[in-house]
């Protein structure tokens, strides 16, 4: 699932989400959140908040000085025998990887989980050249076999049951698989171990790039990140330019935040630190630094902070909307609150302007975000961009809706018109009213009543308030409107 090029219809997508996906999503996110709360509790709430503030400062500083830190990364990697490539967009990045694969005569590739490679559609590009690509993260392996795409950034196959996975393995791997997670995992281990040893190239993403020494940090629980970057003769890492951090102290802060926020571990099973090439390791190390719209986001001082994301998925886990619709509704590789920011920022609001509205702005995401991204603020910023346009984009709202909004603004802005409207609503609701409820409203108000009835307009607050203050004595309420 690359970034989309046609308009994302969140409403339509969420309507077609199967109840099974929603249920599996909720089971998974509930477990992750519970374990997260336990480790944060053990760390101590006060220290945790201090750690989050440190994480925020580190990421913001890295972004505002990104050009300097990127140059440092490049300098240090080259000094350690690695090669650095720069890619302005997805096409350039794919071109670089394809060029390397063809130069080395690569026939098969093992891949550690990388959101960036999903973003640019790297697998499809490689497969089109006849190169076999094996996703090696268990969840990614499963969705790749199924011909699907991840539904969560850290738990790609959370939407599938063990029965579905067993069926998939029976069909695609031609083995007698039973719906037992341990056995299914063993099947995947056996199938992929061969590929690790045969692959001509290993491709990874990167969790961080430490400028101080030019070190690529890869965090995995399964060990596939280590095998993909140790066994094949060539290692190519495709990493977004925003992943750079200043130094090793920053890495200590962010790794503590990341593991706890992802799934409630104090530390991820394997943290790998790679600086250029080494004796006994791959003969070549290539880093592809990908912009793909990131420098444009950086220019927007409000939206910039979305680039601080360390891809833990906690915002998705806690989001009441994500938990009702599942990952696919977001129509792109990044989903949930982080997707509602990144997709419109990268692809424009004409394509993804609906996503910032797929939020109640309840703020649960911002409360958990390990690097304190002000998610609701950025979503509001993007809603404004969608409706009114700004220095970065022209508005994308259709004319009719804009006219209605103007009328609404006019009525709500004038006390007299507002009062008249309220009175008319009480009169005109009569034919629609069923007891205390309005079960169905005419378009465009039916958007509400398609999901739930609307409470009937009753009484008159102003009149009630006048009577109330007269009897209860005028407390402080005089100035209320």
């Amino acid at each position, binding site marked *: 699932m690359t970034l989309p090029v046609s308009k994302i219809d969140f409403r339509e997508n969420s309507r077609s989400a199967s109840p099974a996906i929603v249920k599996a999503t909720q*089971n998974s996110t509930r477990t992750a959140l519970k374990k997260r709360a336990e480790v944060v509790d053990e760390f101590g709430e006060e220290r945790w908040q201090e750690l989050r503030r440190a994480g925020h400062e580190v990421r913001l500083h890295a972004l505002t000085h990104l050009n300097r830190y990127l140059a440092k990364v490049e300098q240090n990697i080259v000094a350690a025998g690695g090669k650095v490539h*720069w890619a302005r967009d997805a096409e350039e990045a794919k071109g670089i990887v394809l060029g390397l694969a063809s130069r080395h005569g690569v026939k098969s590739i093992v891949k550690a989980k990388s959101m960036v490679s999903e973003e640019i559609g790297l697998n499809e590009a490689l497969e089109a050249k006849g190169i076999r690509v094996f996703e090696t993260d268990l969840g990614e392996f499963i969705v790749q076999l199924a011909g699907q795409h991840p539904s969560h950034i850290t738990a790609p196959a959370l939407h599938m049951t063990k029965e579905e996975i067993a069926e998939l393995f029976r069909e695609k791997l031609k083995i007698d698989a039973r719906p037992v997670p341990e056995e299914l995992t063993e099947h995947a281990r056996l199938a992929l171990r061969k590929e690790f040893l045969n692959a001509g190239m290993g491709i990874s993403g990167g969790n961080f790039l430490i400028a101080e020494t030019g070190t690529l940090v890869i965090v995995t629980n399964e060990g596939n990140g280590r095998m993909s970057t*140790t066994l094949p003769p060539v290692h190519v890492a495709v990493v977004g330019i925003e992943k750079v951090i200043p130094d090793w102290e920053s890495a200590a802060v962010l790794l503590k935040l990341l593991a706890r926020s992802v799934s409630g571990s104090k530390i991820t099973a394997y943290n790998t630190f790679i600086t250029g090439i*080494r004796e006994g390791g791959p003969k070549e190390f290539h880093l592809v630094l990908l912009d793909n719209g990131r420098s444009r986001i950086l220019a927007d001082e409000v939206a910039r902070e979305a680039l601080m994301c360390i891809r833990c998925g906690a915002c998705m886990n806690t989001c009441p909307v994500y938990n009702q619709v599942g990952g696919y509704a977001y129509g792109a590789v990044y989903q949930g609150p982080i997707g509602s920011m990144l997709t419109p920022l990268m692809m424009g609001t004409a394509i993804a302007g609906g996503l910032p509205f797929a939020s109640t702005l309840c703020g649960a995401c911002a409360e958990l975000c390990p690097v304190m991204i002000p998610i609701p603020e950025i979503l509001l910023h993007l809603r404004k961009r969608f409706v009114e346009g700004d220095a970065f984009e022209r508005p994308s709202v259709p004319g009719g809706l804009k006219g209605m909004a103007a009328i609404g603004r006019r009525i709500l802005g004038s006390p007299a018109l507002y009062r008249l409207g309220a009175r008319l609503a009480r009169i005109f609701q009569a034919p629609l009213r069923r007891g205390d409820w309005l079960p169905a409203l005419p378009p465009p108000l039916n958007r509400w009543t398609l999901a739930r009835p609307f409470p009937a307009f009753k009484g008159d607050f102003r009149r009630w308030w006048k009577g109330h203050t007269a009897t209860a004595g005028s407390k402080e309420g005089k100035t209320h409107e």
Partner: protein
Amino acid sequence: MSSHLSARETILGDIRRAVAAYALSPLEPLPAKAQFAPRKEGSPEEEMERMLREVRRLNGQAQRIGGRDEFAAAMTGLVRNEAVRTAAFSDHPLLEPYGVAEILKDLGVRLLPPGPDGRRLAECDLGMTVADAAIPETGTVLLRTTKGQADHLSILPRIHLALVCPAAFLPDLHQAFALAKGDRHFVLVSGSSRTADIEKVLTLGVHGPKSFHVWICD
């Protein structure tokens, strides 16, 4: 996008313009708020107990080994319980006094050379490493990748045994990074290879070792 510029120049130029407010001033150090004080360590005994506890919490097995005889007994137990037929170990000097090779040979275990082609370890049962540092807070061992202790040794075999001497204990990640940040390659290992990708059921041994043992050798 001016096509005569290289991708590198375009990207760095775009970034410079995007952060214009910061781009001209000298690179400032990180603000004080970005610093986080490392955890304070407990007494050596507390740290040792914590290490044992945390490794067990990660579904690993941990024990203290006091001398050569205990080492031989523990190794006999491990080889029998986990049906070890082949093993490879690091060239670290800590292993020498224990006579690992003799113990394993006596138990009928075939020894594989740990390098230089680590791929051979794909069929190996037991990989034995010596931790360059250990972080009790998280049950973590730090393994610096060297010719004699290749990365393969702790990822390909079915069982990973890491030996830790008490002097290797460090309070937090910060000190561990200070030790190894100049290396071309190192890993932090905490437990065995794990996943919860199928219905959130914790499963050990996806791609790497299925079991993880830590022996603290006094």
